[in-house]
């Protein structure tokens, strides 16, 4: 197992370099961060040249990239163009988005898996059809539409929740944004669990368990669920990347000052160090989540053993 993890970590290195270089290329080579700093005005050529020299922008692109990555691994993410260290922005933004994503994954796991098991065990009945139809509708409504509609209905019209999240982003104010963020993935989790449970419910080992006279509850939880959750775990792991991406939309709607909000601001103002810094960390999170998923495989399914 240890060797497998190390091999996977090594395999991640080229992917990490490729992905971050692609983003780096988009921001620094396709765009012009120095011109962006001056907004609509044309910069004074001498000042612009000075800034380029200070930020290593006069060097070839691959050299800029190497210098940038070298700095990152010593904990220096550079400064946003307003002089604020990017690391400070991250310190305030990451805890908020981690809380948001945790809540969202929690909803997906609890509600999605429960609904999936219920409809999978009652395949073809009214509950199942209802769940299938509901998830189809949820999947087809884009996140930003659900966000605005729920914000309008629950926050503005009925006044059940505060429509915007305050700057500290406490847990209770994040509930609605997390539901909005989770909704589409929740529907996918439900459908996946349903298919998986329905398939496994006909498996031999379940029939054996029933024949042995085990209580229904134990069969469902210990035998059926454990085997049915394997594809769901994969999905949840990959989905963490989508959640982080989706946070751009959700955080904008509910005015949450997390990673997505900072990224969006950074992109709009072409604040290159902020964008590349945040994306780099996001890519690391995404790759690590995939690794955790692969390791969890072995824990959930004893047949899979990594050499």
């Amino acid at each position, binding site marked *: 197992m240890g060797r497998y993890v190390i091999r996977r970590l090594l395999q991640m290195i*080229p*992917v*990490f370099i*490729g*992905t971050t270089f*692609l*983003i780096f290329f*988009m*921001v620094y080579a*396709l*765009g012009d961060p120095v011109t962006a700093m001056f907004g609509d005005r044309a910069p004074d050529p001498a000042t612009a040249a000075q800034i380029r020299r200070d930020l290593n922008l006069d060097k070839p692109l691959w050299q800029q990239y190497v210098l940038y990555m070298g700095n990152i691994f010593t904990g220096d993410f550079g400064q946003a163009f307003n002089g604020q260290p990017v690391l400070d922005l991250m310190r305030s933004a990451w805890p908020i988005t981690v809380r948001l994503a945790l809540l969202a994954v929690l909803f997906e796991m609890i509600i999605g898996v429960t609904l999936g098991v219920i409809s999978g065990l009652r395949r073809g009945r009214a509950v199942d059809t209802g769940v299938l139809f509901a998830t*189809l*509708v949820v*999947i*087809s*409504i*884009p*996140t*930003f*539409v659900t966000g*605005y*509609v729920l*914000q*309008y209905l629950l926050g*503005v019209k009925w006044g059940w929740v505060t429509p915007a999240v305050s700057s500290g982003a406490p847990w209770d104010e994040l509930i609605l944004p997390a539901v909005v963020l989770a909704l589409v993935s929740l529907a996918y989790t439900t459908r996946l669990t349903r298919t998986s449970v329905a398939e496994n419910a006909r498996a031999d080992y379940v029939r054996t368990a029933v024949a042995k006279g085990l209580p229904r509850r134990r069969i469902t939880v210990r035998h059926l669920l454990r085997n049915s959750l394997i594809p769901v775990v994969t999905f949840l792991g990959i989905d963490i*990347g*989508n959640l*982080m*991406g*989706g946070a*751009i*939309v959700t955080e*904008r*709607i509910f005015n949450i000052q997390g990673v997505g909000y900072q*990224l*969006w601001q950074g*992109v*709009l103002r*072409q604040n290159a160090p902020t*964008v590349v810094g945040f*994306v780099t960390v*996001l*890519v690391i999170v*995404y*790759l690590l989540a995939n690794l955790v998923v692969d390791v969890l495989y072995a824990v959930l399914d004893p047949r899979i053993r990594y050499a």
Partner: protein
Amino acid sequence: MPERYEEKQRADIGTQEAESLPGSDVLQAEAGGMAGTDQPARSLWSDAWQDLRRNPVFVVAGLLILFLIFISLWPSVVATGSPYNCDIANRNLGAESGHPFGFDSQGCDVYNRTVYGARASLTVCTLATLGAALLGTVLGALAGYFGGWGDAVLSRITEVFFGIPILLGGLVFLSVIKSGSVWPVIGLIVLLGWPQVARIARGSVITAKQNDYVQAARTLGASTGRIMLRHVLPNAIAPIIVVATIALGTYVALEATLSFLGVGLKPPTISWGSEISTASQQIRNAPHALLWPAGALSLTVLAFIMLGDAVRDALDPKLR
């Protein structure tokens, strides 16, 4: 099943150019018949079509999509006037006669804006899907068929693209290209979407090329191009079509989300995403200006997802 194989055999002899390789197609059918597990391509398609025609989900989705195609080709037939004909005096007014959806914050007729918004969504999703499917199929099929270093390189490239959440990549890429027309959005979706198709195409081609009839064709001296186009691809294309159909719906939603974030389609191009973004600032005063385009958008995505579901069920009988 046996009568189907005979059918296929007859069809093969009838349609394919018998002069170049008279034996190979008969042999192909025979090999398929002996293996027993590989469905002949043509009967899979006619089977799928039989299934689809009887599937109410497909019929509903198909009619909706035909309607959407119609209004994006000829919006003026359905619309009551020009979408650019706005009068600020009508700002945020509700529905009235002749203006069933009311007016938005610029005093534009929401019904006409919604009708004219269909074109952008459909253009982006069809062209982007076509582009991603073509590029992905060609690269994935070549990598899967030939293997070797090209395959290794392609696999690494796909992994790199999978490392970037598509919304994030889109936001960064499109913010640099400030055009606001449909082309950069299509280009972006093709750029970030092809690896998904390539991965499926690669796997599917690898499975198909191991079949006996491919070996038989090779033994008979068929050229690589012929084996690829006539023997491998027709038997590997079903999963690609399924992925592409499902992608249609996701791309509609993706385009709207990018436009909503202010980096996708921009005025004067009318798109549901940017309509919703503008209306969101006035949601307290004029929720209808947000709800109508949002409804149209969701209905479009729903139609494409239903189509994708139906096509998948029809083409992949194992999933039933």
